[in-house]
């Protein structure tokens, strides 16, 4: 069961990443696209046990760091998504999260992950954009992620719940 769950999770990350870089740029707003990998990680954090979600966050972030066309310092998305997974796992309760709770968690995780990535750029002296530009990026990214939540989260959460019945929050 664990292998199957890992397989499903990794497949979800791969599909999310490819769609994110190849399909969504056609719909992007000023180059800002929804972070589908983050949605996969949040879905896992809300459904299955925390260690799995944390490691999945790290793996998904590392994939984002290494897959073309990424050119930033590797490890930055890994850090951001690990912490986002940690926060999302803290939110998890023993009953099934309500729709509002899911949307809120996605918004918070998206805000934290994108901000953390931007902050790590400032720490590493990446000549990124201005603070205003960063704020725009963070806020639009949150809006994008929340917009896609109703389409992406429910099927993923059902998938993870089915593959791990002992942790399923029914």
């Amino acid at each position, binding site marked *: 069961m664990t292998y199957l769950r890992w397989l499903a999770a990794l497949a979800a990350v791969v599909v999310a990443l490819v769609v994110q870089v190849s399909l969504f740029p056609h719909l992007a707003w*000023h180059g800002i696209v929804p972070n589908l990998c983050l949605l996969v990680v949040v879905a896992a954090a809300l459904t299955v046990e*925390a260690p799995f979600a*944390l490691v999945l966050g790290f793996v998904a972030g590392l994939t984002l*760091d290494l897959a*073309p066309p990424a050119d930033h310092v590797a490890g930055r998305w890994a850090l951001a998504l690990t912490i986002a997974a940690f926060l999302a796992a803290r939110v998890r309760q023993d009953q099934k999260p309500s729709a509002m709770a899911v949307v809120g968690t996605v918004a918070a995780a998206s805000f934290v992950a994108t901000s953390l990535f931007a902050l790590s750029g400032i720490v590493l002296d990446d000549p*990124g*954009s201005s603070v205003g530009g960063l704020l725009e990026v963070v806020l639009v990214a949150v809006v994008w992620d929340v917009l896609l939540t109703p389409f992406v989260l429910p099927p993923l959460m059902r998938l993870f719940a089915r593959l791990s019945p002992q942790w399923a929050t029914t």
Partner: protein
Amino acid sequence: MGALGGRERRWTGLDRLESRNRPPRSLLVALVLASITLVTLDVSGGAGSPLDPARRAVGEAFGPAESTVAAAVRPFTSVPAWFRSKSDLADEVRDLEASNADLRSQVELAGFERNRLEQYDGLTTAAADLGSALLPARVVAVGSRQSQSFTVTIDAGSAAGVGPDMTVVNNDGLVGRVLRVTRSTATVLLIVDPDSTVGGRVGSSMEIGFVNGSGSLDQAAGLDLRLVDDASVPARDDTVVTWGSSTGPYEPGVPIGRITEVYSSLREASQRAVVEPFVDFSSLDVVGVMVPSGSTSDRALIEADGTLR
């Protein structure tokens, strides 16, 4: 509020019962440290980063997937084009042929500009054969703004003869340079990236300077031109072309953009100008990679004299 109260009580009272849901701190710390280690490795590695093999391996795996998805998506993104040209179907092949013709004229123009530069400069060393061929490719993946880098993936890699530091153009002007390649794809750094610096030359005065990316896809936000000679003032509406060298990443004589505004910076005692790039970076599709003339490739090359090989 009730839920919060419930959690509070559980945190204090039923810690053991709840523990299965609580993310383990130790794992978090381990993963965060792993991330920081990766960052450190990548930063301190500099040019020959120890993560390059990993990047390459992941690229080999993801490149074909990205190309496939981009190819599958392309018919749908061209739907608006069908509505625009009501009578004439925007045929994929015809589109490509038209772009190829444009790219070909681009090569011819590049040669012309280069000859002109050489006349002015009296540089005879570069004269012999800078003739390069154009390798057509399509953009299959675009880096997100969240990642703060302006890079794209194109569907031509080392198998097609593409290598690092090659110049990428489209029918409007300079797009960027190749950063790294996999077998079937290449990652291109766009000139709008804040990290990108291109040696530029003002068309009329032949003054040289450096063109930096502004970190915005907005065409009007433009690029930043800083002239080396602070006594010369660039003129508005002047064209900026690449300065280039036979060893550096950018081929000489490729048009970059048009000067729209000029500032004198008193503090730095130099002239700054805003250059509006010719290329619209928000809708990149067909590009050409300038490869050495006569190089082997798995697809047709457009030679400098316009022949297809």
